[in-house]
């Protein structure tokens, strides 16, 4: 497992993938949070960074599938997966190794955004007048959301040997999970009885719940279940062969 983790992580940084994706995330967030007026932190009356946690999931919906689309699709295309599966590693070790590598990338992508938090911290009046506890919880929520998207990306990648297909499939699944359930729950005929249940199936609901600063075990359980489900499905896809 360690070998696979190390190889994956090294491949992100020896190719341009990691630099481009992390750079893109920072550039887009920087523009939206500081330059463009709609979400600009400088124009809000309170020292807070909520806008970051509103925008980041939107970027993740596209960025994470783009990042994870190669995990299995590329190995299937090049048939290196065949060699890997004949080596003394189990399919689970391969999946977990790759998943942990994407999580490491996620942390590496999120760490530089702390600069924005620091800036807001300094801009508060007086400096430091900011709810750090809530920000920490929001980061935790964002990390969990990113982790779910990574698991979805890996799942989509394991279904096909075509990276474009994997990308589109993953974007679609992330979108459904993030917005889809919320939209469905708004359908009139569900209101009053099913809408709360349907809404709670979406990530959005649990993400915002954690962002408020309360880490509820139900929300944690939700994220862990979704990740577990995606990775198990991935396991099924790569172990059943023709």
């Amino acid at each position, binding site marked *: 497992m360690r070998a696979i983790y*190390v*190889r994956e992580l090294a491949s992100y940084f020896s190719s341009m993938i990691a630099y481009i994706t992390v750079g893109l995330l920072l550039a887009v967030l920087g523009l939206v949070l500081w330059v463009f007026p709609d979400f600009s932190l400088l124009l809000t009356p309170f020292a807070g960074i909520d806008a970051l946690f509103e925008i980041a999931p939107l970027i993740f919906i596209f960025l994470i599938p783009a990042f994870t689309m190669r995990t299995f699709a590329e190995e299937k295309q090049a048939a290196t997966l*065949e060699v890997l599966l004949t*080596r003394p*590693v189990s399919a689970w070790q391969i999946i977990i190794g790759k998943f942990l590598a994407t999580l490491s990338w996620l942390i590496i992508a999120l760490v530089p955004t702390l600069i924005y938090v620091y800036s807001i911290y300094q801009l508060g009046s007086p400096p430091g007048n900011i709810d750090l506890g809530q920000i920490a919880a929001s980061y935790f929520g964002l990390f969990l959301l990113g982790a779910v998207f990574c698991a979805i990306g890996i799942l989509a990648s394991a279904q096909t040997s075509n990276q474009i297909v994997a990308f589109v499939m993953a974007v679609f699944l992330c979108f459904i999970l993030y917005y889809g359930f919320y939209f469905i729950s708004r359908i009139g005929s569900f209101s009053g009885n099913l809408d709360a249940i349907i809404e709670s199936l979406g990530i959005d609901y649990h993400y915002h719940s954690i962002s408020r600063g309360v880490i509820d075990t139900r929300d944690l359980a939700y994220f862990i279940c979704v990740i577990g489900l995606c990775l198990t499905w991935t396991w099924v896809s790569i172990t059943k062969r*023709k």
Partner: protein
Amino acid sequence: MSISVSNLSKHFGPQKAVNDISFQVGKGEILGFLGPNGAGKTTTMRMITGYLAPDEGEITINGTIVSEDNLAIKAQIGYLPENNPLYLDMYVREYLRYVARIYKLDHPWKRIDEVIGMTGLGIESHKLIRTLSKGYRQRVGLAQAILHNPDVLILDEATSGLDPNQLIEIRQLIRDLGKEKTILLSTHIMQEVQALCDRVVIINKGVIVADGNIHMLSQKLAGGVKVEVVFSRPVADPTFQEIKGYRSHEKSGENRYIISGETDAINETVFDFAVSKNLKILEMTTMRESVEHIFQQLTTKVS
């Protein structure tokens, strides 16, 4: 027996890719695995390496049954698949280091240097795999297969894409490895079989059509022995009947005849015949069936 395959079958839908095959490979033996494209060679090899699960039958390696989950047995196998898949964006040494890490080798760099030396990768070992020529990529493939010093080597078309000089080197390497390891080698190249293998198994449409020593196979197939003779003057057709053990003959050139007989003794009786007829033999060669010919005969039969 190092590799023992018994009653192995694999279906893909209605198509029987491998149909009830059994064979064994002993320690220190190099077995040539021959067959036309689509005969089931790669499927069989994939099952031996544990990549595919057989529908019926079983495979044992050093007495242990191969299964997908048996990681200990997988560590004893070195596998070079067809088309030699590699991570093109890795460096040769980086890739071998990665493989060494998977097998948890104790002194990885020592072994990596050793294997680089054995496969003749030396000067290319600091390059990106993508930039290597096909021959050198093939060596990387071979290097990763032998890195963990496995007992059993499964080589699917190991020498494809090599130039004649490289071919000689790699064949020598395989021959050396074959002294202590068990090697199953699939190939299309017939000279390879003649150069390397102690024994061949020929498979066609998922069924074994021949298994044995190349010389034995050729005699069995030809149903006798052929000699090509050049006499000093023409011989009338019916007079050939006087040769003891004669079966048939054909004219293959001026005063040149191919005579087939029932046994090896045909050489002597042709000589006696020539003496009795006062003919002079200018040339006489025993013809063996080439592996190509055996291969063609066995695999193009209408079934």
